[in-house]
């Protein structure tokens, strides 16, 4: 192996207690993040991608949520076993997070500078003046013009894109080893999205931070990620490098995701192909493959038993959980418009 794993999530189960019963939001998720790598977790709303990422930082509200089983090994240390006090030393310092909506993620009654300085003072034992210097440096780094003036301003004096830059500055202030970006561009308009993605790519190279990027925007994935984890109904159904997922996807759900993405290389008259149906209710998840109900290629076995995860080549970088990979399954080729992703 060329690079060491920074984060290893092993068979993670997370549930939430609700009025109607136990919602099994995450049902046995495993994936790795190597040092300096960007891993994208993709999937539709409610597939458990945000819960997974928030569980890594232990940010899910407990109760009603709890980690049923599994391990989150970060630098060899199991985060699920740490006390709340020990977690405080990890959050912000080792692992940092950027949230979806920069409009609501900053405290409206505190200056942006103070919000950046807070983590620095807590984790790096800096004095006020040093922390301020470092905050200025961070603002400059994330491309906020005239930081000396901006540092004393409040979030409402920042535009949406600038706020997300400020959030990135807060997250990266203590030089964390892992950055979790939970749909960092979803709430921004398209031109600003591109700027923020460029900035994140830039900083990733400069600071060598590993990144987990949560998104449902495959365009974003193609532009930023090294590897992709496709989640569906609380499970990982396919993982691979960006090339593998975009050019040789193997799971019918991944085909569906590709098919529902607008493409420049196909005729404009051709309509996008949506994935019909809705994901299963995680209050009582199906016994078999959760996608079976919406899958064109579903066989009898699919509804009865969850397929095992199969590695597609020696290196094991491309893995898929689908019965179609079984030697006895019929050979199915994906529809042409669903592979060979045009954005890469």
């Amino acid at each position: 192996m060329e690079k060491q794993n920074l984060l290893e999530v092993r068979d993670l189960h997370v549930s939430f207690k609700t009025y109607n019963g136990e919602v099994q939001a995450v049902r046995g998720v495993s994936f790795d993040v190597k040092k300096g790598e960007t891993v994208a977790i993709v999937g539709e709303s409610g597939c458990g991608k945000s819960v997974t990422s928030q569980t890594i930082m232990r940010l899910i509200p407990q109760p009603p949520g709890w980690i049923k089983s599994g391990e989150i090994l970060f630098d060899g240390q199991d985060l699920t076993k740490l006390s709340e006090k020990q977690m405080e030393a990890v959050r912000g310092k080792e692992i940092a997070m950027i949230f979806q909506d920069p409009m609501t993620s900053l405290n409206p009654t505190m200056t942006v500078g103070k919000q950046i300085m807070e983590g620095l003072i807590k984790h790096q034992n800096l004095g006020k003046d040093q922390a301020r210097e470092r905050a200025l440096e961070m603002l400059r780094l994330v491309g906020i013009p005239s930081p000396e003036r901006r540092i004393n301003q409040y979030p409402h004096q920042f535009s949406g894109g600038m706020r997300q830059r400020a959030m990135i500055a807060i997250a990266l202030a203590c030089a964390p080893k892992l950055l979790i970006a939970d749909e960092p561009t979803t709430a921004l308009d398209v031109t600003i999205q591109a700027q923020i993605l460029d900035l994140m790519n830039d900083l990733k190279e400069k600071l060598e931070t590993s990144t987990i990027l949560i998104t449902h925007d495959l365009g974003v994935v193609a532009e930023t990620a090294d590897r992709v984890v496709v989640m569906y109904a609380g499970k990982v159904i396919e993982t691979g490098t960006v090339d593998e997922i975009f050019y040789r996807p193997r799971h019918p759900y991944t085909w569906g995701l590709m098919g529902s993405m607008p493409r420049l290389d196909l005729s404009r008259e051709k309509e996008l192909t949506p994935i019909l149906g809705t994901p299963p209710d995680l209050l009582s998840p199906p016994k078999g493959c959760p996608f079976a109900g919406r899958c064109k290629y579903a066989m009898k076995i699919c509804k009865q038993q969850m397929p095992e995860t199969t590695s597609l080549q020696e290196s094991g970088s491309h893995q898929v959980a689908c019965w179609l990979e079984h030697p006895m399954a019929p050979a199915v080729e994906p529809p042409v418009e669903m592979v060979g992703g045009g954005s890469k």
Partner: protein
Amino acid sequence: MGRYILQRMAYMLITLWVIITFTFFLMHLMPGSPLQNVEKIPEELQEAILKEYGLDKPLPVQYVQFLGNLAQGSLGYSYKYDGRSVTDLLMQGFPASAQLGIQSIIFGSLVGVLLGSIAALRRGTWVDNTANVISVLGYSVPSFVIATLLSYYVGVKWGILPTGLWGSFQHTILPTLSLSFLVIATIARYIRTEMLEVLGQDYMKTAKAKGLSRTASIGRHALRNALIPAVTVMGPLVIGLITGSLVVEQIFAVPGMGWMFVESIQVKDYTVIMGVTIFYSALLIISIFLIDILYGVIDPRIRISGAKE
């Protein structure tokens, strides 16, 4: 900001003038006159007295005269306390009332914020339920009932604290407590609701993700945001305190302005009524103004809208 303050000052003066005008004419509509037992006083003497105080002139003339004197800073002389100026009387009653008011609002706010925060953080537990009961009681039971109960139990039955009069700090405790119940109840309710709201906000998650402890994130991020709506009810609360103090001062025999106000109305001491009204109104108008300023201090989004960036 300077322009905003000037504008507000102008509005404040207009408000005050409207209050003065209404009170002046309403006061003269009250039956009776400043003269007691009119039937026993000879006609000529009555006329002489009224003339002496300028009460024989038509009402509009009296009004204009009053405004003229007021513009020169004179509130006139009391009818009842012969030879004492209204300003003098006000200054005599003011310290006690001010002390009670300030003590109640500070004590009430502190306890209210504390109670409301704890209730929100311990939502659904016995602490929350107790805080709720206190809020409902403080909100619905008038301060004079609380004052009577405190006076009876703490003052008379247990004899822990003096039941009335003025002098040491101990004399202020019971009236302060009676007045602050409303403040505690109101503030606690607002803080609890807002705190629950704030705790679910995204920026609280950001604070947690930074590695702040729960105490630090509540102290630094939640509290200030939760305070904003509580500050807006401070205005009505000050009104509540002032009206409450009129009665509570009577119960505890506090030589304050509330007591003076009630007495002046009973004996139709016109100049004193006007003086106290003007004083209370000005106090209220200024309080509301200060609260608006305070609102801006706590919430930067408000502060900026007044001034140009």
